[in-house]
């Protein structure tokens, strides 16, 4: 380790709130040159918010950021870039109609004779960068980005940050869409950067990677730093305890449930995005669906609720033939979906909690199409109280609630509809640990009541802790089935990478 003890970037006593949500509380951290610092914590722990502050996207409410010892007030991503801070985002912004080279060097085009874009120089620089990463087999500089997969897009985002002048490079879960091979190239690059004296911040919740790569580790929980220590002092049990704030056994209860009849059966279902998917979820059963981002898990959900058209294969819902033409058909078959992105796909943010809860059960709150306010209030109050949504009133707009409470409103909606099958797509994304524990209990309770649950999750603790059975997907196919009680992070990842050979270039 070539760590000199002058930090490049220092964060001191920083707090940041969004409405009622305290995203960061009094966070202090130092990032040194020539060091890889892992930033760990569950979703919603504050890792991303901290990165947004460093890249000038948000400003701290309290506290200060120092770069090279000087206090800075970063007001834009441009200013942060000028200070040598680069953040590599998990979901890269790619301009599809431009080439790979253009996407990498956007904002840094060089001109010939003062005005004309120097394309030769552009492609040459891109080729060099691609070659230095050892990924010439995956990307070509001249290729348009339109048809690139998530992994290739991720690589472009990484190369953008590798342009000269970087002092601090932050990677936000860079391997979530990479295969092992690609990740290997990335790790080599990160090690080289460390040798060159760059400070690397590595966000991940994959412990294995962190142990392999990082020198030091900062753990965040609920917006506060709970530990900062060398990786040599860490093992898995300790890390989980730090991240979650309690032993795993407190979060999940693993009850043996009486399984009822099959609520959903898929037989070789094929859509544009998935092929030959067969699965069954029975009443009272929690079936986990694991895999990498983009492996087709969400698309299975979309097929079941009638958003994506089924091209081949058959579905049965509670034993009856089922071919939904629209989400309305799914609701009539008493199938509910808690989607991945609750703000974009589940909630009407300006509307009240009441309106959101009653959305899918108009028949319960109306007579001849006219709303009965008393009945509606009663329904909303009942479910909001049952799920302990923290709010002064059911008239409160949903947008004003914290992430955890918003998610509870989504659950309240489906509880009100008395579903037979509930599909949960990343049900705890972006919510704090306390609310997470409540959601876990809720999911277990729903299964106890005999509701069939299909759980899509990228969070290993959650997938392993809740599922009775785990099906793993890769490239739109199911690659294996594991028993929930004996599955491990490794066994899931093995199956997730299984058929994962990225399409070679033409």
């Amino acid at each position, binding site marked *: 380790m070539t760590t000199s003890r002058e930090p490049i970037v220092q964060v001191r006593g920083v707090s940041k709130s969004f409405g009622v949500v305290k995203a960061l509380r009094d966070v202090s951290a130092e990032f040194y040159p020539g060091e890889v610092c892992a930033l760990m914590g569950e979703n919603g722990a504050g890792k991303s918010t901290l990165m947004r502050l460093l890249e000038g996207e948000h400003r701290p409410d309290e506290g200060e950021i120092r770069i090279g010892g000087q206090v800075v007030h970063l007001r834009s991503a441009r200013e942060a870039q000028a200070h040598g801070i680069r953040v590599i985002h998990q979901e890269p912004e790619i301009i599809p109609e431009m080439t790979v080279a253009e996407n990498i060097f956007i904002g840094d085009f060089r001109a010939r004779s003062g005005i004309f874009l120097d394309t030769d120089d552009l492609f040459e620089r891109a080729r060099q960068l691609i070659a230095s990463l050892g990924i010439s087999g995956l990307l070509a500089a001249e290729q348009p980005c339109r048809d690139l997969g998530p992994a290739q897009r991720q690589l472009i985002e990484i190369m953008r940050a590798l342009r000269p002048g970087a002092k601090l490079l932050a990677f936000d879960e860079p391997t979530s869409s990479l295969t092992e091979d690609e990740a290997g190239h990335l790790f080599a690059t990160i090690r080289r950067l460390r040798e060159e004296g760059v400070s690397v911040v590595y966000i991940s919740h994959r412990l294995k990677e962190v142990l392999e790569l990082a020198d030091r580790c900062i753990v965040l929980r*609920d917006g506060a730093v709970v530990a900062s220590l060398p990786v040599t002092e860490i093992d898995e049990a300790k890390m989980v305890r730090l991240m979650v704030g309690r032993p795993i056994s407190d979060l999940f209860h693993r009850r043996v449930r009486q399984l009822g009849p099959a609520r959903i059966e898929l037989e070789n279902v094929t859509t544009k995005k998935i092929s030959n998917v067969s699965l069954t979820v029975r009443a009272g059963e929690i079936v986990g669906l694991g895999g990498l981002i983009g492996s087709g898990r969400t698309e299975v959900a979309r097929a079941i609720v009638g958003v994506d058209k089924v091209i081949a294969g058959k579905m049965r819902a509670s034993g009856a033939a089922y071919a939904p033409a629209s989400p309305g058909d799914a609701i009539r078959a008493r199938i509910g979906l808690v989607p991945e992105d609750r703000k974009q796909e*589940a909630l*009407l943010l300006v509307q009240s909690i009441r309106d959101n809860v009653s959305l899918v059960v108009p028949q319960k709150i109306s007579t001849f199409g006219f*709303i009965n306010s008393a009945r509606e209030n009663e329904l909303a109050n009942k479910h909001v109280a049952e799920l302990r949504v923290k709010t002064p009133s059911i008239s409160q707009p949903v947008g004003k609630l914290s992430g955890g409470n918003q998610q509870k409103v989504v659950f309240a909606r489906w509880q009100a509809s008395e579903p037979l099958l509930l599909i949960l797509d990343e049900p705890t994304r972006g919510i704090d640990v306390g609310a997470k524990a409540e959601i876990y209990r809720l999911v277990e309770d729903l299964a106890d009541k005999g509701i069939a649950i299909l759980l899509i999750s990228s969070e290993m603790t959650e997938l392993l802790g809740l599922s009775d059975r785990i099906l793993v997907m890769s490239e739109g196919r199911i690659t294996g089935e594991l028993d929930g009680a004996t599955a491990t992070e490794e066994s899931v990842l093995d199956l997730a990478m299984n058929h994962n050979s990225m399409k070679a270039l033409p």
Partner: protein
Amino acid sequence: MNAPSTTQPVVGAPKTSIFGRTGTQNISLLIALIALLVIFTALRPDVFFTPRNLINIGLAITILGILAMAQTLVIVSGGLDISVGSIVGMSTMFLAVAMQWTDSTVVAVLVGLLSGLFAGAINGLIIVYGPVNAVIATLGTMSAFRGIAYIINNGNSIPVQSPALRMLGTGTLLGLPLAIWLLIVIMAGFMIFTKKTIIGRNVYAMGGNPTVARLAGIPIPSYQICIYAMSGVAAAVAGMVLAGRTMSGQPASGSQGLELEAITAAILGGCALTGGKGTIVGAMLGVLIIGVLNNGMILTSVPTFYQLLAKGALLVLAVIVQERQKARKGE
């Protein structure tokens, strides 16, 4: 921190009144309205605040009021209908022609309303099955429907002889013009629809977030077609009032520029152009402001050209104020 959050569950449920929450927006509109009344009363103390002139304002806003309420629903659903002014003109022409051919007011009114229904349904079909952006689709039909209105009688108006329509245009009931009663009835209908029916609620949902609405099983395409059809019918009802007032079918006079005023009123009333937000009461307050402004500008002899300038500025100003508020609230 480990204990699950155990804040007291919710009790008490405020009633949803059909008047909605009297938001700060409506209060500022009321203040603006009162300010305008005071200003014009001060400028023309002899004529402005007289029962006769106030009834004049009421009559003048009937047509605009009907259009603004329909427009509110369109905007709440996430769309925009700028063809309404043309549909008003076109429907008066169909009504007048039917009146000439059949000499039956009932048939004439039905033909007028049907022409509005068809025009609106065509808008909806283009928007859904094009699919064409609502602004572009209705910009196109705005010109097309106006064209039809001119084609019907070579650009000339057609007289309408119908005592019943004359009643509607000029008659009174309990001291108020019949047209104002019609406006009040329609307003009550719209308020009940938006606040008290499942379909009305769903319109807010689809405008607020189409993805959520679709996943909740709301058939958005059918809703869209119905909403534009409704907007067309509302324009035809406004056309019926106009025909009653002028006793003629007018291809352009009296209906040109109505879309601008209707949209301005809806936005003044708090409609978000992104959809999902807006109230009937707010839109009617917007209509009153525009009505008072129009009337006051005429009484204080503001030249017509400057009136147009003022109305255009009002629309842009309303949107600026709305965006600023949104930025401040951090939405």
